[in-house]
């Protein structure tokens, strides 16, 4: 009895010196396994699948902004070859149509962007084209938002404002089934 009591008295303090080592061990484990991935990307809503043929609606050619990308990653925009860095500006002018050009969209609500690529188009270029078109809309939204509300357009602005802007300039991008000329 006496012996144990003596023992108790002696070891009533745990040595915390090794605590740091244990913590280090855990730290190193998490350091090694960690991947700080930036999960970012272009979010897209795909159209639902239907087996039926889509009914053909005739659109006025002035309202359609057609973008074709071939297997050599070249762009044909409304019948003209165009380098990719002009796409954003051209798309913006087409959608907004500030000078009421006869050949461009009647109203932003009527503008349709039609994107068609080949199965041999490289994914990088496809995404770049998509990015430019999205950027064109983003810039138009931003301009409208600044002009009307005096704030830059962002995802977390007032819902009603955002909706008003999105209604005025809706993002309409239709993707056609790709052609298969340059499949790898």
């Amino acid at each position, binding site marked *: 009895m006496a012996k144990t009591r003596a023992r108790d008295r002696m070891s009533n303090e745990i040595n915390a010196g090794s605590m740091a080592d244990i*913590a280090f061990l855990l730290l190193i484990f998490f350091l090694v396994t*960690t991947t*700080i991935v*930036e*999960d*970012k990307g272009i979010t897209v809503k*795909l159209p639902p699948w239907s087996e039926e043929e889509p009914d053909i609606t005739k659109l006025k050619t002035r309202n359609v902004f057609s973008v074709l990308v071939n297997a050599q990653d070249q762009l044909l925009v409304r019948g003209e070859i165009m380098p990719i860095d002009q796409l954003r500006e051209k798309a913006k002018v087409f959608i907004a149509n500030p000078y009421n050009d006869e050949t461009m969209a009647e109203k932003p609500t009527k503008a349709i962007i039609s994107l068609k690529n080949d199965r*041999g188009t490289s994914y990088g270029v496809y995404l770049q084209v998509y990015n430019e078109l*999205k950027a064109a809309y983003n810039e138009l939204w931003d301009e409208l938002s600044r002009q009307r509300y005096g704030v830059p357009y962002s995802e977390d602005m007032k819902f009603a404002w955002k909706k008003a802007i999105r209604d005025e300039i809706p993002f309409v991008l239709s993707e056609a089934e790709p052609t298969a000329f340059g499949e790898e």
Partner: protein
Amino acid sequence: MAKFSKKRGKTSPAVSTASLPDIIFMLLFFFMVVTVLRDAELKVKVTTPYATELTKLEEKSLVNYIYVGRPVERYRELYGTKPRIQLGDKFSTVNDIPLFLERHRIKVPEARHGQITSSLRVDGEVTMGIVQDVKTQLRKSGQLKVNYSARKDPKRKGSGVKGD
């Protein structure tokens, strides 16, 4: 002058290491919070392209990943160099996508099924053919929310027009 230095020299400057565990713990917690345990080893080479109009994927538990790219060096002999799809930790075909999506879906509460996003991590050099097949299969399986994984170009700041 001399007085000062003498006084200093005498006192033994033993830094207390008692707070060391606390500092380490702080670091540890930081890494525990930011860490994402990688559940799958990448068997295909994926270098995502650059883009500017990025949105962030918020909740990791609502995201499933589909990798598309050429097999890495190690698997070339077995699987060739043609672009392949990787689901989870194995090479797959387009036909495996519905089951893969379903496996992920049952882990998510039913009310949030509409918020599930498929993150397509596709190599920039892959051609659209295989991507198109994946997209078609996703549409057929009713998985319509898709995120094309991309990075910000570190060389271009802001929303510069991307050339080349």
